[in-house]
């Protein structure tokens, strides 16, 4: 058996063990290593990707459930061949990144959040980020950086 899905806009066919978590396929077979596997239990959020536009933890999604679905990883989140989206740029400009392990997941969560709500409150951002754990505990500066682009037209482009 195999499944065909889209990863960062490209059609991919997977014919391995369909119980394999998406995170492992992304990292080990497609070499998309921006998706980090840390806790592997869904608690930390470092492996967050977009599945059909929604942030989900890829460590808990078996490949067999992904037939026909669209997956976007940190490597493809800017879209259109761009190097970074607005969330990535503001995190860079505000010098927020510390060790970087959590950041791919943070970016995926925040990008989807701003896509739906261009002007989230600080509390709304905190709620969205409750599943993304930063071991460097840089949360407030992350929020400051994202709020600096909140409300801007096309905030995540």
């Amino acid at each position: 058996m195999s499944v065909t899905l889209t990863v960062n806009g490209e059609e991919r066919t997977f014919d391995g063990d369909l119980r394999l978590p998406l995170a492992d396929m992304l990292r080990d077979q497609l070499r998309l290593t921006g998706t980090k596997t840390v806790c592997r239990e869904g608690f930390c959020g470092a492996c967050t990707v977009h599945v059909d536009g929604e942030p989900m933890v890829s460590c808990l999604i078996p490949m067999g459930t992904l037939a026909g679905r669209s997956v976007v990883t940190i490597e493809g989140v800017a879209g259109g061949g761009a190097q970074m989206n607005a969330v990535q740029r503001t995190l860079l400009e505000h010098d927020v990144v510390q060790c970087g392990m959590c950041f791919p997941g943070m970016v995926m969560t925040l990008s989807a959040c701003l896509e739906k709500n261009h002007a989230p409150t600080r509390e709304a951002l905190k709620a969205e980020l409750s599943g993304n754990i930063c071991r460097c505990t840089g949360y407030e500066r992350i929020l400051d950086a994202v709020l600096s682009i909140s409300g801007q037209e096309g905030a995540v482009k």
Partner: protein
Amino acid sequence: MDITTGSTFLSPDTIQQAVSVLRDLDGAGVPLAGATWISRAATRCETPPGTYVSLAGIASLHEIHIDARQVSIGSLATHAGIAEALTGCKDLQALAMAAGMSATPAIRRVATIGGNICTTAFAPADLVPPLLVLDAEVEIQGSGGTAILPVAEFMSQRRDRAPSDLVCRIIIPRPARRSAHARLTLRKAGEYPVAHVSIAVATDALDRIAEAAIAVGSVEATARRWPALEAAIVGLAPDPAEMKQVAVAHLKDFTGRDAVDAPGWYRERVLPGLVARAFQALADSEGGAS
């Protein structure tokens, strides 16, 4: 259905196909809902079942139907989907709150109500206490036909049911009542609850409690109702402070479980405060949507 002999991942298209496959596998396969629990098996050095029988392709299991008489929730409805669908239904607020506060946003988009009530080793299952106070019933389809039983009965016998028995939907009646939920975690979010409490009450013309249902989860191995407290608060005003005092007098009804996140005595001791918080949430919802 695409089935390859010896495959470790099957995707039936109908409930009947799923029941048939599970019967044939005779315990060597497991129904796969949101996969959030089973996917942790390798990390926890547990042996995963040989074959996943994914239910995701069965459309009816994802559906939520709400009318004035009852609510029907397919077993693959996600926590996020339930929280959104039930927003504003005051009688069902306990379930909406529990579904909207569980785990993390990313998990809530995937985790299902069926998985939540079927995972036997999951003491803190978020949706069980609200289902208990809302008198929910579980519809099961299996080799022997269809059965509908109260959620408490299902919880007590779920380990012993046939491997081909499939939880298909949850049915919740809608009598005149209000409900709420309170949850304690060590961090504000993203954790299993140390303890959680759901309440559902009907009040009389003087705003005294005429009927009450209270359920406690995560304190013992399986969530259950608190009948002594339910009886003790009938006739009282639903005042959070008074409810807390009454709950203190009935704490001996529980024997808290020790686990890495909290000792048993702590789970017991926080219950009166959670009862008060649940009644406060009930009071706070006054004046909102009906």
